[in-house]
């Protein structure tokens, strides 16, 4: 029976199942007459339960029978008859699941054997004492199911969740179990049982989509049994080929997954309905979330609803906002919301393809929400992700057989994004990578790179990396992401296999490996993001893939590259006769972190600076400001400018300082304007620029600007960060590296830089990062052109710690 080539109809399958059922019924009936009836003129009935009870006997599935007795018989004759009955069935090579019970046992909740209670949901009479059977089926069981509906339903849900977890929680396994796995037949049965319990009687026939899923799964399972000659339920690669017949196995598996998805979805919906009925504290808390409503959405029982679904017709961006809302509050779209979204999918698809709206800020906001991973998953299952990014539809349910991954490409991707969320939670994984997240800059870009890292697999080329990077670049351009962020995502995708290649096939102790990795990553910022992408990519291969061993190897690969980049920052300088004179002698990092247009702007700024010895440019970029300063080098410029910015109430988020061979410096400060001074008072732009120029030239003391500024509020005691100062004399060949981790506050950089200048040291290079209220400042410092002497370190450390304390 080739399912693909000569696909049997649903009728064929149900006929085959019914035939086997009838055959077994005949055998059981005959054996009852000859073996059991003589010993039990009454007081015993034979019941078909489970799959046999449902008349769904697959070619090699177990035959579940229950002997219902009016009392437990102790007599030798009766016991011998029952034993002979079971033995004879076994001898006929029927695998019998058997039990013997009195009616009272059948109608009590048995926590240790909930399977007995469940199997009775599908019971029917086969032979024996009909009055005894009717007493159970018409008197005791209806009352029992009515009374125990809630605990039984909850137990069924618990068992289903355990079963799902056992199979990795995902329907998208490359070799799925069509019976027990998520989306398997058991899910279909679960739906029927829960509906049966809720209705108090047999539920109406399933909806057409669910019935189609059942028929498909029935056909596959029947085929597996016939092909393997045993009760085999795993759809292995070899059997997928057989099932697909002349069709492409990957295309056939897509059909499988779409049916499994329906069964799984229906099971989850039923389970949610049950679990929300129980009045636990958790549920009450969930209801409390209903307050998280806006004029567009409202939340009920943990599900988001659109207030006016028809607005999707003329406001397609509402669909993106919906998932952003879901990501912010950790809620899922309701079944009705998903239905509405699907209804408008063609419209959404057309709009995103043709109008090419400015989507990037909304998408980035979505990716930055605390529940971005489940929100993206919901966006995928509702089809909206594919409408925004048709590239994604090509990896939907895509099977790539590499004997390494366990999931389809889309599932692997969403699991990878979930791995980052798990790291952020700090519950799972390696704490070192959780810490790395606080240093790794824009996590939204990491998530976006993960979202596209395997999209190229749809092209079927030998290496998917280039195709994925191209697809991401095109998609980002379409949603109008800025060029620098497109560049970062492209780099992350292009190099997403580098760290894992190094950890598995290169000697991490070899300096050449460190140089290779450093060259591939380019900058410490990209390296950190790459480490997270790699972590997530490995963790998403299957639940046990990220072993402590793998994690240690990845961390070591990251470390050697980090050390190499830190070292080369101070030593690797630009020496290119063709380059502009201005950038001669800047660290190589300068070229890696600046686009050609930035460099052209800097050269122009340098030209302007020649007249007065300084030139300053301030511009607003996507919610923050960037100040670029070119000047002749003189002591404590960095501290002075930091002080001037703090004096205007600005908060420095990021700073970089470079010096070229002619003693010209280029400092860049990225800052926010918490009091909106610049936004509300455009004239302050000029005043700030002039003030920065004057402090740079030494004509204004920034202390006068800082006088009278209010002291900032400190965060709560729990969130306080203990300041730490570390000196490293070996990280660079020509400077001492000082790293300061401290609680950020306005004026911190000024205080630190002043402390270094006051100690007679010169700041050669500085990299400042602020993550939330944690500042990570790295200074490359010299004294008299040399590294710091050991005796200089202690007083400077004390001075820096004092500066951190404010």
């Amino acid at each position, binding site marked *: 029976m080739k399912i693909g080539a000569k696909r049997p109809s649903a009728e064929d399958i149900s006929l085959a199942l019914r035939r086997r059922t009838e055959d077994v019924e005949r055998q059981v009936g005959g054996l009852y007459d000859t073996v059991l009836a003589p010993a039990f003129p009454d007081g015993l009935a034979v019941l078909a339960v489970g799959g046999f009870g449902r008349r769904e006997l697959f070619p090699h599935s177990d035959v579940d029978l229950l002997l219902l007795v009016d009392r437990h018989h102790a007599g030798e004759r009766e016991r011998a008859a029952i034993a002979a009955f079971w033995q004879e069935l076994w001898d006929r090579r029927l695998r019998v699941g058997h039990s013997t019970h009195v009616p009272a046992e059948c109608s009590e909740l048995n926590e240790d054997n909930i399977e007995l209670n469940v199997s009775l949901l599908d019971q029917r009479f086969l032979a024996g004492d009909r009055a005894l059977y009717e007493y159970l089926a018409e008197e005791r069981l209806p009352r029992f199911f009515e009374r125990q509906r809630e605990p039984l339903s909850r137990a069924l849900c618990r068992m289903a969740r355990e079963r799902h977890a056992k199979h990795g929680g995902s329907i998208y396994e490359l070799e799925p179990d069509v019976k027990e796995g998520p989306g398997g037949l058991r899910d279909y049965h679960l739906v029927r049982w829960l509906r049966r319990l809720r209705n108090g009687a047999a539920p109406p026939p399933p909806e057409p989509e669910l019935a189609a899923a059942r028929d498909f799964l029935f056909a596959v399972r029947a085929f597996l049994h016939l092909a393997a000659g045993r009760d085999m339920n795993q759809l292995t690669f070899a059997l997928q080929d057989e099932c697909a017949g002349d069709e492409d196995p990957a295309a056939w598996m897509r059909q499988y997954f779409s049916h499994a998805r329906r069964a799984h979805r229906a099971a989850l919906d039923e389970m949610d309905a049950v679990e929300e009925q129980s009045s636990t504290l958790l549920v009450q808390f969930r209801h409390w979330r209903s307050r998280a409503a806006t004029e567009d959405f409202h939340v009920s029982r943990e599900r988001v609803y659109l207030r006016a679904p028809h607005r999707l017709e003329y406001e397609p961006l509402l669909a993106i906002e919906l998932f952003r809302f879901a990501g912010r509050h950790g809620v899922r779209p309701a079944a009705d919301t998903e239905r509405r979204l699907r209804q408008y999918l063609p419209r959404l698809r057309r709009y995103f393809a043709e109008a090419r709206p400015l989507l990037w800020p909304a998408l980035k906001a979505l990716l930055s929400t605390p529940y971005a991973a489940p929100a993206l998953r919901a966006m995928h299952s509702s089809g909206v992700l594919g409408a925004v990014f048709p590239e994604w539809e090509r990896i939907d349910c895509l099977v790539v057989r590499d004997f390494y991954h366990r999931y389809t490409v889309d599932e692997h991707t969403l699991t990878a994004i979930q791995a980052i969320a798990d790291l952020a939670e700090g519950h799972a994984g390696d704490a070192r990578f959780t810490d790395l997240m606080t240093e790794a800059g824009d996590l939204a870009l990491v998530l976006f790179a993960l979202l596209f890292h395997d999209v190229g697999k749809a092209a079927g080329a030998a290496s998917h990396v280039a195709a994925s990077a191209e697809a991401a670049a095109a998609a980002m351009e379409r949603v109008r992401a800025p060029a620098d962020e497109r560049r970062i995502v492209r780099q992350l995708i292009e190099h997403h296999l580098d760290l894992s290649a190094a950890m*598995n096939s290169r000697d991490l*102790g070899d300096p050449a490996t460190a140089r290779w990795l450093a060259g591939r990553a380019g900058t410490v910022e990209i390296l950190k993001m790459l480490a997270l992408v790699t972590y997530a990519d490995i963790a998403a291969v299957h639940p046990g893939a990220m072993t402590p061993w793998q994690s240690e*190897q990845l961390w070591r690969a990251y470390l050697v590259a980090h050390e190499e980049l830190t070292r080369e920052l101070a030593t690797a300088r630009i020496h290119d006769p063709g380059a502009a004179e201005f950038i001669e002698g800047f660290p190589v990092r300068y070229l890696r972190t600046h686009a050609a247009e930035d460099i052209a702007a800097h050269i122009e700024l340098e030209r302007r600076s020649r007249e007065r010895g300084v030139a300053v440019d301030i511009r607003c970029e996507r919610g923050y400001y960037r100040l670029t300063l070119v000047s002749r080098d003189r002591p404590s410029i960095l501290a002075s400018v930091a002080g001037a910015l703090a004096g205007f109430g600005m908060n420095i988020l990021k700073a970089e300082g470079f010096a070229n061979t002619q003693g010209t410096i280029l400092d860049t400060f990225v800052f926010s304007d918490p009091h909106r001074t610049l936004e509300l008072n455009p004239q302050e732009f000029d005043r700030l620029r002039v003030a920065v120029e004057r402090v740079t030239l030494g004509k204004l003391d920034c202390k006068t600007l800082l006088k009278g500024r209010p002291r900032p509020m400190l965060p709560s005691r729990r969130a306080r960060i203990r300041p*730490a100062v*570390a000196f490293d004399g070996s990280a660079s060949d020509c400077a001492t*590296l000082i*790293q300061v981790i401290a609680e950020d506050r306005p004026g911190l950089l000024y205080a630190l830089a002043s402390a270094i200048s006051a100690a007679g040291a010169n700041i050669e290079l500085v990299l400042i990062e602020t993550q939330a209220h944690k500042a990570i400042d790295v200074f490359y410092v010299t004294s008299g052109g040399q590294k710091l002497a050991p005796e200089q370190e202690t007083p400077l450390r004390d001075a820096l710690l004092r500066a951190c304390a404010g």
Partner: protein
Amino acid sequence: MKKIEAIIQPFKLDEVKDALLGSGIDGMTVTEVRGHGRQKGHKEVYRGLEYQVDLLPKVKIEMVVDDDRVEDVIRTVTRAARTGKIGDGKVFVYEVAEAIRIRNEDRGEAAIG
């Protein structure tokens, strides 16, 4: 029969595996392990702060072979796994009392082929 256990550098696994396959050994068990010998771990510096790495990631390969293959396997493994630096690993050889194939209860050399 002898059991040969080789602890090697992770990045040498493919090379050692290929060399063993090339010399006719196709059954082996590979485990990701951590440990140290004279290499003792070392200090790593991250962000200017030192921390001690005590146990280093290694790979353990185990195989059971006929007595007359032992020297050949040892030579193959040591050649493929060698870089010349401390930390290349070790090979241990054990006496095996009996081997039984679970599927058909083959015993002795028949079970390891």
